[in-house]
């Protein structure tokens, strides 16, 4: 056990830090062109999909290097790259299950964000119980014909392509009749409606499919093997990026400590109030534990061990902790934490942001409610931990059929 960074890792961190200091845009990125240009710059620097093999446009980077880049991006207040979900889910899906032609056609353009992707899994009646999805893909000669609806699809309004799970055999048990398809989001018959989120921004959408034609060559893996594919590739997403979540919380709480020197509470700076100090000490300790736990996961990944169902512990940990962090921040800041317009700069997380824009205390607070819902809710994670880590007997389920083989709960990475 040695928890120090190697000289090599430290040197890498210095290089990343120097590059970011030089290149992080000073101005806020507003248009999609600006965001794509920044993404492209990150890609050219080798920071996008860097863990992927070189043959697919990655850098064969170690998990530690990826974690360092994630951390340094937050520290440098760099705008995030595009296609996060695509890189986390679509690329591993293609690498493991796609045809050579699919890999050549899609991976590079996804990495460079020339094409933006979305994940078309959830439906109005299929959330945690994803395998009950109803959206149909019927084979008609060389084409699938898609009919149905998806919902909560992040970024569908900007997406060029979507990774779709649809039902291709309605007679099979529910896990066995699903296929995985690559869908051109510009196809006729697709209608996208953005949904306004509680944060005030419109980042997820409803997607309606009416007789949308998808060529058969866009099928990933075998027909009706979609559930298994989704299960295996979803597990790739979790784990290694926990440190950047820590980095983000740290940034917010560090700023909170500064604000507490200024903000008066009972006639003295909040930082001198013993009750506030208790809360700050508690939350800081909790964040440190997240950092330690992240290092533990990272060190396993470095040894080439896959986290497996244990990644549910990490997901449960950081998403629930984020809610506690954000609640604490609003506790300490009182109404100032909920103020967006007119908040004095010395009390702001980032001065001058608008309602529905990233950078306010409020926005971070509201978003913390999403983390325990998407990518498998906390309740689903606890089921996975209970059944697959602790080995507890499965709960009694009303939908179990004999032929059903795949795992019950969704371990997905919807974002």
């Amino acid at each position, binding site marked *: *056990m*040695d*928890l*120090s*960074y*190697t000289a090599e*890792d430290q040197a890498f961190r210095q290089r990343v830090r120097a590059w970011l200091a030089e290149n992080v845009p000073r101005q806020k990125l507003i248009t999609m062109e600006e965001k794509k240009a920044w993404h492209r710059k990150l890609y050219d620097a080798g920071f996008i999909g860097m863990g992927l093999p070189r043959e697919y446009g990655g850098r064969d980077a170690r998990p*530690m290097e990826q974690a360092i880049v994630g951390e340094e991006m937050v520290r440098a207040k760099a705008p995030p790259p595009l296609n996060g979900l695509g890189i986390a889910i679509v690329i591993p899906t293609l690498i493991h299950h796609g045809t050579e032609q699919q890999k050549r056609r899609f991976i590079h353009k996804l990495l460079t964000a020339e094409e933006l992707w979305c994940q078309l899994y959830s439906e109005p009646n299929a959330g945690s119980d994803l395998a009950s999805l109803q959206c149909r893909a019927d084979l008609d000669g060389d084409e699938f014909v898609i009919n149905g609806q998806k919902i909560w699809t992040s970024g569908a309004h900007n997406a060029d392509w979507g990774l779709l799970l649809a039902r291709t055999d309605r007679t099979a048990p529910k896990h066995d009749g699903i296929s995985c398809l690559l869908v051109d989001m510009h196809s006729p018959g697709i209608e996208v409606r953005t949904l306004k989120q509680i944060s005030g921004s419109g980042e997820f959408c409803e997607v309606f499919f009416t007789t949308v034609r998808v060529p058969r060559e866009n099928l990933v893996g075998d027909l009706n093997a979609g559930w298994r594919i989704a299960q295996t590739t979803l597990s790739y997403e979790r784990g290694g990026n926990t440190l950047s979540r820590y980095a983000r919380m740290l940034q917010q709480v560090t700023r909170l*400590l500064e604000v507490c020197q200024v903000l008066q509470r009972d006639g003295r700076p909040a*930082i001198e109030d*013993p009750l506030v*100090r*208790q809360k*700050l*000490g*508690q939350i*800081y*300790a*909790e964040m*440190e*534990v997240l*950092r*330690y*736990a992240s*290092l*533990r996961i*990272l*060190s*396993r990944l*470095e*040894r080439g061990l896959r986290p497996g169902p244990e990644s549910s*512990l990490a997901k*449960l*940990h950081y998403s629930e902790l984020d809610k506690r962090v954000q609640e604490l921040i609003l506790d300490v800041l009182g109404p100032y934490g909920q103020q967006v317009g007119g908040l004095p700069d010395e009390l702001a997380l980032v001065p001058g942001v608008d309602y529905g824009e990233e950078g306010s205390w409020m926005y971070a607070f509201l978003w913390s409610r999403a983390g325990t819902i998407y990518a498998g809710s906390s*309740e689903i*994670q*606890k*089921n996975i*931990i*209970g*059944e697959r*880590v*602790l*080995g*507890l*007997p*499965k*709960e*009694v389920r009303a939908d179990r059929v004999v032929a059903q083989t795949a795992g019950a709960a969704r371990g997905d990475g919807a974002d």
Partner: protein
Amino acid sequence: MDFEFTEDQVMLRGLVREFLSEQCPVSHVRAMMDDSRGYDRDLYRRLIQLGMLPFPEAYGGAGLGMIEQAIVLEEMGRIPYPGPYFATVILAGGALMASGDRRTQARYLPDVSNGDLTMSLAFLEGGIAWGPETIRLSLRRDRDGYRLDGIKRFVPFGQSVDVILVVARAGEGRSAEGISLVAVPAGTPGLAIEPELMMDLTSKTATLRFEGVSVPAENLVGPEGGAWPAVELALRQAAVGASAEMLGAARKALEMSVDYAKVRKQFGQYIGQFQAIKHKLAEMLELVENAHAAVYYAAWALDARAPDAALAASVAKSTVNVAGRRVCGEAIQVHGGIGFTWEYDLHLYFKRAKHLEPLYGDTEYHRERVLQEVLAGRVAGSA
């Protein structure tokens, strides 16, 4: 960056686990609950002789670090081992090593290392505090030595160890200056030892009254009036060591609960099938794994003298205090009535964890310490 144990560390854990499970079955633990000394000297000697001590080889130790001590203590928490290992090795041994006083180290540590000498550290007096301001026990020069007057409470195995290191103060002040450490053998005239009857019967403690206790000058450990840094470091190590022991107790309680949830049936199904129980167990696992990360990170930081060692120690103690109470408490809940019986072993872990919770800093104390360290900039990577 490597958070996995080395082969040697894995072997050490295996060795201690095997020794304790064979030599210290729960029947022995229960027998010691009714024993006035609270431990078996022979078992203690053999345990010490396993060769896992943190002292230099010149003193008969194995030169191991805090990570190894955490492993040993975690295993002890799983039993829970009744005896003065913590008192002797972590508290007194830690203070001796931190004092840098070679003469006293050479005087005691060889006997400690072969198991012939047991020791403890007397810190708490009236009230609850872990800073120098709480120390009032008076130390005065007295012909060729020192005279001690005052009271110490909650001295671990104070009724049955051979030598007690006493934290004392010369003069009236409240600051760190003036704090001295003095070795007082049990049986010294003027020292009255009263066993305390505590909730955890496997962890004995005593009240020590000092009335004109005289010790020779050579019993002073480290510089007169300058012992606080050594005491502070020993307490910091003790906080991490106690956390490791609580982690062991909590993991054991979790394992028992998971096993029970797989066999106990109600309403025609295993109780582990109910989400109310399953989710509780998942949360307990999260607490235990986080406690593991916190304990071993802190142990590493102490060994590596990392800039955030003090921060990490306080993170660990405040984290494991909460984990210990929740995991051991919920374990009783998962078991239902059987968990509330004297005969079932769960309360042994519940009580051991609770015993250690207020010692070497409670949760609030360490949260405040966390904030102080952060505001002072002593965080990871700050050196």
